[in-house]
């Protein structure tokens, strides 16, 4: 079994009932990837602008909900929220209660430990759903409000009952893993276009295999970047199974609380 916890449909949203051309292209790629790579479940969020307005957020979540309806067996959704918006809580509630999404997605509009994020996290704890947090330490091109591992660690310590996923190993594993290693409520995904030979082994050494989940960032990255990291890593078959799907199943199970 294989679960991809981190993919996207990219582009400006369309208008009901039609998806935009770029989003249709993302959807086609993800469906094709699901078939070709034998992925059992693909979790999607819609992204476009770094600072999306309320209309864009609503449109992107509509596109994800539409995709879930079209491909219910393959596609699951993370509700994209801009915490700076006054309607952010309504967006989250609609996403989880009406649009069948299974988690919340935070990107680069605010740091993840911004106080405007707190009520959203508290609602996610009530729902017992995971929060997928983009975090990326960059030597070049750092965005103004792009979260880093210490931001995720701050949030994790404030809310130890929240289930957090730090994406992309925090960008650079050597910067991203140490700050969260003593936060048992933080899982890591290694999605994206980086595939250094030693990143997964280093991550396992620091936090073990139970908190690593498989993600790809498709269609903006090659599926094999991430499959190759697991297959090249010094991992047992049992550890690979945990990474490929067992850890994700546990994370997504709303009946199981971590505290």
């Amino acid at each position, binding site marked *: 079994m294989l679960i991809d916890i981190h993919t996207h449909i990219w582009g400006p949203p369309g208008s009901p009932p039609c998806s935009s051309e770029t989003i249709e292209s993302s959807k086609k790629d993800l469906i094709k*990837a699901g078939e070709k790579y034998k992925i059992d479940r693909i979790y999607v969020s819609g992204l476009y602008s770094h600072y999306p307005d309320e209309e864009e957020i609503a449109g992107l979540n509509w596109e994800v909900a539409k995709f879930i309806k079209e491909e219910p067996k393959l596609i699951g959704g993370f509700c994209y929220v801009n915490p700076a918006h006054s309607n952010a809580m309504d967006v989250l509630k609609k996403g989880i209660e009406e649009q069948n999404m299974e988690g919340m997605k935070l990107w680069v509009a605010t740091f993840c430990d911004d106080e405007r994020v707190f009520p959203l996290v508290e609602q996610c704890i009530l729902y017992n759903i995971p929060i997928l947090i983009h975090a990326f330490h960059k030597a070049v091109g750092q965005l103004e409000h792009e979260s880093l591992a210490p931001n995720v660690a701050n949030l994790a310590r404030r809310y130890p009952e929240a289930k957090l996923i730090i994406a992309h190993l925090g960008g650079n594993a050597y910067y991203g893993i140490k700050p969260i290693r003593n936060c048992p409520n933080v899982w890591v995904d290694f999605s994206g276009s980086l595939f250094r030979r030693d990143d997964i082994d280093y991550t396992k050494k620091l936090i073990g295999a139970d908190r690593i989940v498989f993600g790809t960032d498709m269609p*903006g990255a090659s599926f094999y970047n991430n499959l190759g990291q697991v297959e090249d890593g010094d991992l047992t078959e049992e550890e690979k199974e945990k990474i490929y799907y067992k850890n994700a199943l546990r994370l997504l199970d709303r009946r199981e609380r971590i505290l």
Partner: protein
Amino acid sequence: MKAVDLNCLVGHWPFRKLHKNTLEDIQNVHRANNIDGGYVASLNSIFYNDPFEGDEELHEILKDADGYHHVLTINPKLLEFEEDIKEGIERFGIKGVRIYPGYHGYSLDDKDLAELCRILKENDLPLFLPLRMEDPRLNYIITPGTIAMDEVKGFLKSFPDNKIILLTAFVSELKQLEDEIKDHSYVKFDTSGLKDTLFSIENLTAVFPAEKIVYGSLYPLYTFRSTYFLIKHAEVSEKVKAKILSCSW
């Protein structure tokens, strides 16, 4: 036809610990994936004051390794580099020369690089040109210079008769270089930078002849299977896969 990895290295990388950085490690991952050999360069040579000392180490490592070829590291800004090439040919039987403009601080229109290209042409040796070694977002402590695509375009036009292998180019960069790569009789590019899109081999083989693409992993800096699986599982003919996995000029 033998399958080869054109871009593998042994030695140390100063910025992080490599756990699989010996020839034996490379051979193990190659054997497990039906790769018969490789073109190997020294990571140490990039950073030594005299790169040749790293290549002497590499020669000791490779001298009894069937199917594994020595690629000499040259910094053309160092005096007497032509003597190193001569010695590399005579003592090590080198099969190519690898340069690092980004780390050694020169541009592709440098006059000493032009002299290096003249010597390589004279000796029928390919030039291995890495466009990067790490994703620039991950650079640590030092920031190597970047190589602009306009520089690469000018370089390919200036040396139409040299055998050149572009290493770790992104798909977006290969698209920018499409005309220059197609127009150059002897340039190829490897697979180690094909990370930013889905189905890259299928898409690239629709644009470039398969002879232009060679398999290169950048192991052990990068994972081996991430790029090997791109070819192994690509929806292209076995003939095309065989062409990519073997390198003939």
